[in-house]
């Protein structure tokens, strides 16, 4: 079933919409949550919360890409769960990518909208290959090894390129008045 057909089901308040969404994107969302939480039961719960979130937000929302919409919701919910579960713990989940990003985090409030806009502009301005690596690592939470395999690179090469992108991000933010 196409995205627009599924969205139409949501607008018709037809519960088949959830079933179709699960069928289309269940595995995708589950794997995304697994990368963040590294716990299957938590991830499944997170995906279920995603369906509830989609049900409650469509309508009025009418996303252009249902795939991206459900992924974004899953990601947010999974991050909330991660914060709840892992305060102060090191785990084999999204912790490592977060620690890497901490190198670039300026001294500002967590919900600085200007910062979000700058980050977006930075990512959009990256070379496509670098952008895929950056977004893959810090949006999807992919393991370095997984991206290395997918893109035919060594793990060292991926790590090195990610490091260079982060250094460029630091410079970019510093040039725009943030102190990293």
């Amino acid at each position, binding site marked *: 079933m196409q995205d627009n057909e599924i969205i139409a089901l949501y607008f018709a308040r037809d519960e088949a919409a959830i079933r179709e969404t699960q069928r289309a994107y269940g595995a995708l969302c589950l794997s995304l949550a697994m990368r963040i939480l590294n716990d299957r039961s938590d991830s499944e719960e997170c995906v279920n919360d995603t369906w509830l979130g989609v049900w409650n937000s469509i309508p009025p929302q009418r996303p252009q890409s249902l795939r991206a919409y459900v992924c974004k919701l899953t990601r947010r919910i999974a991050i909330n769960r991660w914060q709840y579960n892992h305060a102060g713990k090191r785990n084999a989940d*999204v912790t490592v990518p977060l620690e890497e990003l901490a190198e670039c985090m300026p001294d500002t409030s967590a919900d600085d909208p200007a910062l979000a806009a700058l980050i977006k502009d930075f990512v959009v301005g990256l070379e496509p290959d670098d952008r895929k690596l950056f977004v893959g690592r810090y949006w999807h939470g992919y393991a370095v090894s997984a991206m290395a395999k997918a893109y035919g690179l060594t793990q060292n090469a991926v790590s090195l390129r990610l490091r260079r992108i982060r250094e460029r991000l630091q410079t970019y933010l510093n040039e725009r008045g943030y102190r990293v």
Partner: protein
Amino acid sequence: MSNAEKGLPLFLALDALPEVYVTEAELPDTPAEKPSLWDRINTNGWVAAAIGLVVALGVVVWIVLAGRGAGGPGIAGTSAPVIPEDAPYAFVFGDQTAHAVEGMWWYSGKAADGKYVDADGYGLSRELLTMSDPPTIVLRAEDTAKLQFSGGGETPGEVNLWDAEGEYLSNGHDFSFLPGALRGKSGTYYVTVNIARKTDSGSGEYAEGIRLLVWSGSVNTHLMTMACDGYDTPPVAMTPMLTSVTMYNDRNGTWISKDLQSHPMDKWWSQQESTLAAVCCTRDGSYRVCDDGHRYSVADENGVVYTGAPSGFSTLPAGTYLVSYSETQAGRTVGGKTETATVTYLIRLIVSSGENTDTAGETKPLPDPMKDEPYLFVYRDQTAKPLEGLLWATDGTTSASGDGLPDAVVNYSDQSVLPTIRADAEDVSALQFLIRNGHTPGTVRLYTVDGSRMLASGSDFSFLPAYLAQQPDGGTGAYFLTVEVPYNDGTYSGCMTEGIRLAVGKGAPLQKTDVRIGDKVIQPHTDYSWFCDASSGIIMQLQTLATESLYEEGYLPVLSIGSREPISLHIEGLEVKSVQVYGIDGTRYGSSADFSCVYDAVQGRPGTYCVEINSFDDEYMGGSAELRCAFVLDVQNDDAAGQ
């Protein structure tokens, strides 16, 4: 604040990225993008050592057990499959064995150093997903519960089902959930069984998996029905032997063949007696594979292949033959490509000489059309054997498996298998549903013809006239109609649905088929062997009973004449294509392009005859159809009456 928490705002800030950049960064095989077990072993030496030790011990234990004649613990199986020593994990179905590919694993506990192992992945191996020729078992969806797993001495855990793209579908504690999860859908799937690992360093699970090629094999499609127009054998429904499955794999665009029985057709002769279902026909009958429209062929012992029109083989000499029958089943559509599976069956056909050795005048028992079909839809002089739909359980212990619509309806492209009743919109209340086994029919449901939407329902057919009357054009058009019947086979209990296509038209097209002899007029029994759907242009083959069966069932009207009475038959409004005349014992007295064979057969010969007229109807339901009319001609002995 930890470093990870410090980086969280940036991680969240990426939410503002346009969707296109998020999508472009997705890795192609999302659920399986994790490093392989081998990668992990290489990067975690202690894990390699521990797992290697456990695997080695498992193999040793298995070898010891195998040596004692005992297999490892299995799932849903009673007999221990024979597994080679170098492949301790295998899936087994019948005589098929597929050695499992080791999948991803994860740890749920802490490692010896107090840290969680950097484990990820959740069950399906990338290796399995991308292998050009992965270990595979081919089976019907409803047989998937009979899969067995040999765990090499280890206790199997959760079973997971994945689709052709490696996306997770469903899981269960054993294989029993598979038929319900597959819902009779043919296609490519993967199934994995989790194996628990516990070492001093930590604990977790990994998965052993294979590919499943599933063909729908619905209840009706694996029954081959053969009918002989001779009287020796009634229409026979049998379960032929499945010999091969060829499936289109939409993922990599290649065809996958699986010879379930590795013998070519001619090799079957050596073992046909014990393995193949057989049907006997008389030589002077015609042999019809009722699922017309599919491919089939007949070969004799010398390898001579006979081909025939879909209407049947009428020229086979007496002897024994093998009938090879293939049909293509459409599955789901993925990525714009439709998975299809071609399945081939064999049965044995014994054609006798056709000489009638019985005492003259003795009537053989006539076939019972409901012998193998306990359910029948009847409308006036039409009958339709319904398709059997899916079962859903009511015992609360098994998962439901569908909403009751037969696969053939859901897979609407295969319209040729839909039995059809053609009813007059104003007379639809004459529809009946016959049950042989004493069950009480349940809810009646009316669907759109493709089964996609239920339109109305009721406790019997009485809702139909009112519903149709409210629709545009009096409800004319095509529908699918189902009736619930109770079902209990000892394993499942619940409801089965029996369904037909219901074509609703206006008026009574049968009027023009009146047959007249002199001033006597009768309306013969009329049915259609195929018709061209007016809206779609698709020709639909219909299942029809043999004329003799119709006679036995009392469907044929009787026209009585004296043996000395001049006879001149006329049929109104139709162009006669051919006429055949039979005795009620099945003897064919002749055929011709007009009624001359009837005159030749009955003139001066008192007796009871069946007359069958074949014609075309170019006005039927706005399309065209092949029409069969039949009636009984009772020729009374005028000489005896005169004495």
